[in-house]
């Protein structure tokens, strides 16, 4: 039986909701039209592919299964009995591969020299071999380079094979026997398809090549090196994906109901309801965001200290803190959306079709639900899309100020925080930062591009 933490449940529910929304959208012509202009954009489609890969990893990392004692995973990083996620299972090897301290990417020896007693009994001041990285090499000086090349070639081959399978599968599914899959592939290659399939397939090719090389290399090396206490940096970065994606999505989704309800009420009923709600969000908005978050996180910490018994295990503690961070971040960011929704509702309530509904005696709840709410959808969508990337970036900053996620949670913010003094070392330890940078950039850039495409398609002022 899978074990679910609160954030897992919320995340899975959100994905289900998303799937339902997609299914609903596909059946409604008026909703499909703006999406068509999104998916015709090459950059948006490539971004979507990358975002889906991130989402998939986050999903794999959100399904936990308890480990029985006879399982082959005997890890040092998580205590026995704590459930591990599907991603952990997949990464079993690099999860358990611990070194003593820093080692460079793909290295076979440690980053710093040590006194080592050699076979002939003499002591030498040299670089010790790693426990995991390149363990299988008998003679690293000569074999290292050729082994790397062999593995990279193997990985590239596997990547191409995987991509070919995926492409074939896609072609079969997309044509659904209505036409020849080969025809589809040929026209995709020439860029003659309606949707930018060539760009999508090329993006998939790049991703599978990267994945193939990473998998091939991480069987025997630390691809991104190891950190201060010898943990694999690639593993950390991969685990951080869930934290980043969760904060980017749950935060807005969790506070969406609040912004929606208050915004619609304020705009539709006006009068004192409007005054109270406006007062509420102006007050909240006046407090500088970081300070409000800091204050709320301090209060939350002392709440956790008071109820120590409820947060017995490390995982529940970290999970509660992640959830609290999402809610607190949401509390500071719902005001902007609420204001937009209020203004739009004010406009909508005066339109003829709403007036007509009122005259015809449609109940107020029905007017709000059927006539106002659907027409606010584009604002919500744009806001969720635009907020995602800034939230992922905010997580890093907050974790740096120690008001972000729990220090035991893997997150890019914690990685940067832990690594910021490493640049001052001699020689420089750059790989933790580089890895966090690459993984973050590869998420935030597509998110920004996709959000831009969504905004261009849905914003009535921008649509032609």
């Amino acid at each position: 039986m899978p074990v679910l933490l609160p954030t897992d449940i919320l995340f899975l529910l959100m994905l289900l909701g998303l799937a339902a929304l997609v299914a609903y959208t596909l059946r409604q012509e008026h909703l499909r039209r703006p999406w068509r202009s999104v998916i015709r954009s090459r950059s948006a489609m490539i971004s979507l592919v990358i975002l889906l890969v991130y989402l998939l990893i986050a999903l794999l990392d959100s399904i936990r299964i308890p480990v029985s004692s006879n399982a082959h995973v005997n890890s040092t990083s998580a205590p026995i009995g704590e459930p591990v996620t599907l991603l952990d299972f997949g990464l079993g090897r690099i999860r358990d591969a611990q070194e003593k301290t820093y080692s460079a990417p793909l290295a076979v020896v440690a980053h710093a020299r040590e006194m080592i007693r050699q076979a002939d009994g003499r002591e030498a001041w040299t670089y010790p071999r790693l426990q995991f990285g390149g363990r299988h090499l008998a003679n690293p000086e000569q074999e290292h380079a050729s082994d790397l090349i062999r593995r990279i070639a193997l990985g590239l081959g596997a990547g191409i094979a995987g991509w070919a399978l995926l492409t074939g599968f896609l072609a079969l599914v997309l044509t659904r026997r209505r036409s020849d899959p080969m025809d589809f592939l040929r026209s995709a290659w020439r860029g003659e398809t309606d949707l930018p399939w060539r760009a999508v397939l090329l993006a998939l090719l790049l991703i599978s090549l990267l994945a193939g090389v990473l998998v091939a290399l991480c069987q025997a090396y630390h691809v991104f090196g190891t950190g201060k206490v010898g943990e694999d940096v690639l593993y950390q970065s991969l685990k951080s994906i869930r934290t980043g994606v969760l904060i980017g999505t749950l935060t807005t989704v969790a506070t969406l109901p609040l912004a929606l309800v208050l915004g619609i009420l304020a705009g539709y009923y006006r009068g004192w309801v409007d005054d109270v709600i406006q007062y509420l969000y102006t007050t909240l908005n006046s407090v500088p965001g970081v300070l409000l978050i800091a204050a709320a996180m301090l209060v939350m910490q002392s709440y956790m200290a008071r109820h120590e018994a409820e947060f017995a295990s490390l995982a529940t503690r970290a999970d509660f803190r992640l959830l609290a961070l999402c809610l607190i971040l949401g509390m500071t960011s719902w005001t902007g959306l609420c204001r937009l929704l209020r203004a739009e509702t004010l406009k909508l309530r005066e339109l003829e079709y709403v007036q007509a509904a009122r005259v015809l005696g449609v109940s107020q709840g029905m007017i709000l639900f059927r006539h106002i709410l659907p027409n606010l959808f584009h604002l919500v969508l744009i806001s969720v899309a635009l907020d995602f990337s800034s939230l992922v970036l905010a997580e890093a900053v907050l974790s740096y100020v120690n008001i972000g996620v729990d220090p035991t949670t893997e997150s890019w913010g914690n990685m940067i925080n832990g690594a910021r003094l490493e640049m001052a070392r001699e020689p420089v330890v750059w790989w933790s930062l580089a890895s966090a940078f690459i993984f973050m950039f590869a998420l935030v850039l597509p998110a920004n591009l996709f959000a831009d495409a969504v905004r261009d398609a849905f914003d009535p002022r921008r649509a032609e």
Partner: protein
Amino acid sequence: MIDYIIRRLLYALPLLLGINLLAFVLFFVVNTPEDMARMHLGQKHVTSEAIEKWKHERGYDQPLFWNGQAEGAGRATQTIFYQKSLGLFLFRFGRSDGGRDIGADIGQRMWPSLAIAIPSLIVGLAVHIGFALLLVFFRLTYLEFWGVALCVALMSVSTLFYIIGGQFLVGKLLQLTPISGYDGGWNAVRFIILPVVIGTMAGLGSGVRWYRTLFLEEAEKDYVRTARAKGLSEARVLFFHVLKNAMIPILTGVVVVLPLLFTGSLITESFFAIPGLGSYTIDAINQQDFAIVRSMVFLGSVLYIIGLLLTDISYTLVDPRVKLS
């Protein structure tokens, strides 16, 4: 005009009261002084006498809103709300949980914050607007396309990387400026350069994109077409006509942050070890000094509200079409 300002000031009062209450509820009701004492003295092995002593020393041992045991006006004044929260309205910040005078600390620490924030604002504004105008000048060319793409890429990098990368490149490899630190008087200039440059770089992507949309919106208006039709050069149209008219939204964006310059930037100050209000706040957060965080929350909100007020006033000054009502 005076009427208008007074009305706006009165409108700000309930907001301030709301913020005061919010801070009070967060720091004293949700989180009781007892919890604060426990966090400072340790969770376990702490006697109730020690907690009472800690609370008494800091004046947290009174009732929240209403003191039934006191006489006369003391019933309302000898409470935490009166002594700790209402005092903020008069900028009486009281003492921090560590025993320091918060008001004096703020008065001293706001200068380094300003020394970083003001040059950052001016340089940032000039550079961002300059690049945005360039992009608009070269619109519908490959230069614009790649410029905008670069902006999106720059936006997608966390501020932390700009700071760490900048410190490493300029401070450590090139050794042009000190990596971090601060000094009084004119010596401070050496320490200010790097934070200002990095701050400008970090905001480049979003800044240029924002100003570009402003300029593009202006550039499509009729007066611009008229100016072109008159035969004015594109550069003249952009730098004189468009820039001048786009100044209004730019101004509102700038004026609202002016008062907040006092409180400085948390991240920048902490990375560059600048003894300003930002690092003061970070230290308070890390030491869980609730008194300082409460003061800073209130101060920040007051400054923000002042910023909004200034924005409204500046609107009426620069745009004659805006009527006071």
